[in-house]
C-alpha cells in the first residue's frame, strides 16, 4: 500500500479537527463578546440542517467574517509551525550547531526528514488553500468582509512562496550532494 497516502491520511486528521474547533470557537466568541442574540433554524438544503440565524445582516456578516478569520488563523499557526520546522529542523539543511544543541538536550527527534516535513506541509497548505477559497466564496455571497478575503488570499500566496523557497533549498542541497558524489 502506498506509504505516501497512508502518511497523508495520518497527518490530515488533526488539522481537520482543529479547523472545525476554530470555526465553532469563533462563532461562540463573537456571541459572548458582543452579547448577540441568535436562534437556530432548520434549513432545507439537500437534507434538513440546523442553521444559526441572527436578527440582522450586520450581526450575521460580523460573526461569519470573524469566525472565518479565526478558523484561518488556526490553519496559519499550523502551517507556520511546519514552515519553521522545514527551515530550521529539516535534516537536509539543519545547521550543525543546532544539531549539537539538540543532541545535548536529547531532542534530536525534533529533526525531521523531508518525508515528514513535506507531507505535513502539503496537508496544511491544502487546508489553507481550501479555507481561502471558502472565505472568498463567502465574500462573493456577501457573508464575509472584503478585507478578510483579501488578507487571507495574500497570506496564502506568501505561504506558497515560502514553501517554494524551502523546496528550492532542498533541491539545491541535493544537487550539490550529487555533484560531490560524482
Amino acid at each position, binding site marked *: *500500500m*502506498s506509504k505516501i*497516502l*497512508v502518511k*497523508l*491520511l495520518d497527518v*490530515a*486528521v488533526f*488539522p*481537520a*479537527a482543529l*479547523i*472545525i474547533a476554530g*470555526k*465553532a470557537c469563533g*462563532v461562540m466568541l463573537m456571541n459572548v463578546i458582543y*452579547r448577540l*442574540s*441568535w*436562534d437556530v*433554524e432548520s*434549513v432545507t438544503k439537500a437534507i434538513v*440542517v*440546523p*442553521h*444559526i*440565524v*441572527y*436578527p*440582522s*445582516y450586520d*450581526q*450575521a456578516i460580523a*460573526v*461569519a467574517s470573524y*469566525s*472565518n478569520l479565526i*478558523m484561518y488563523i488556526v490553519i496559519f499557526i499550523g502551517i507556520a509551525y511546519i514552515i519553521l520546522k522545514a527551515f530550521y529542523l529539516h535534516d537536509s539543511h539543519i545547521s550543525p550547531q543546532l544539531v549539537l544543541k539538540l543532541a545535548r538536550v536529547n531532542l534530536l527527534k525534533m529533526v525531521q526528514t523531508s518525508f515528514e516535513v513535506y507531507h505535513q506541509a502539503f496537508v496544511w497548505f*491544502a*487546508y489553507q488553500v*481550501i*479555507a481561502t477559497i*471558502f472565505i472568498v466564496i*463567502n465574500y462573493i455571497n456577501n*457573508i464575509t468582509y472584503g478585507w478578510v478575503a483579501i488578507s487571507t488570499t495574500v497570506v496564502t500566496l506568501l505561504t506558497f512562496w515560502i514553501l517554494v523557497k524551502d523546496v528550492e533549498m532542498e533541491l539545491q542541497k541535493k544537487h550539490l550532494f550529487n555533484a560531490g558524489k560524482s
Partner: protein
Amino acid sequence: MENEKKYSFLSLVGEGLIVVLLVFLFVMPFFVADLLTPGYREEYDTAQNRPEPLNTISEESVEGNQTVLGTHSFVAKEKVTMLVPKTLKHAILESYTSSDTEGHFKYKFVSAKEDMVLKVKNETSSRKGLEVLILGDWKGELYIGGQLYHEGFVFYLDPQEDVFITAKPASLEELELEVAVL
C-alpha cells in the same frame, strides 16, 4: 501468481479507500464550517420589510416623548389603541385580530438589545375598563404598569387609564397580547 494478483487487487482497493477518506477529510471541515456560517432573518432586517399593521392610523404622531410607528385601533368602538415606538427596529407586529370587544396582538422580537415599550392607550368610557392578558412563553422580563409579569398575569385597567408595557426580550421571542374591553 494468483496470490500476487489477489494481493495487488486488495492493495488497490485499500488505496482507493484511503483516497476517498482523504477527500472526505479535506471536505468535511469546510462543510461543517459552512453549517456554522450564520444567516439572518431577512424579513425583519429592514423597516420596509415589516408587515403593515392592520387597522392602523397611518400618520405618524408624537405621544409624549415617544414617537410612534402607528396606532393600532383594535377595539374600534371603544377606541383602545396600541402605540409602538418607531425607533424599535427589530420588533414587528406579526398578526392581529380584533372584534368589537377584544383584540389579539402578536409581536415578534428579534433583538435582545432593544427594550420595547408598548403603550396601550385606553380610551374606554362606557364600560368597566380593560383587561390585558399576556399569552405565550416569555423568557425575558416584561413589566406591565411597572409590575413584573409572571405566568397567567392579567392586568386590569380602569376606563381612560393608559398603561405602558415594557418588554426586555432574552432572545428572539414572541409576545402575544390579548386585550379585552370589560
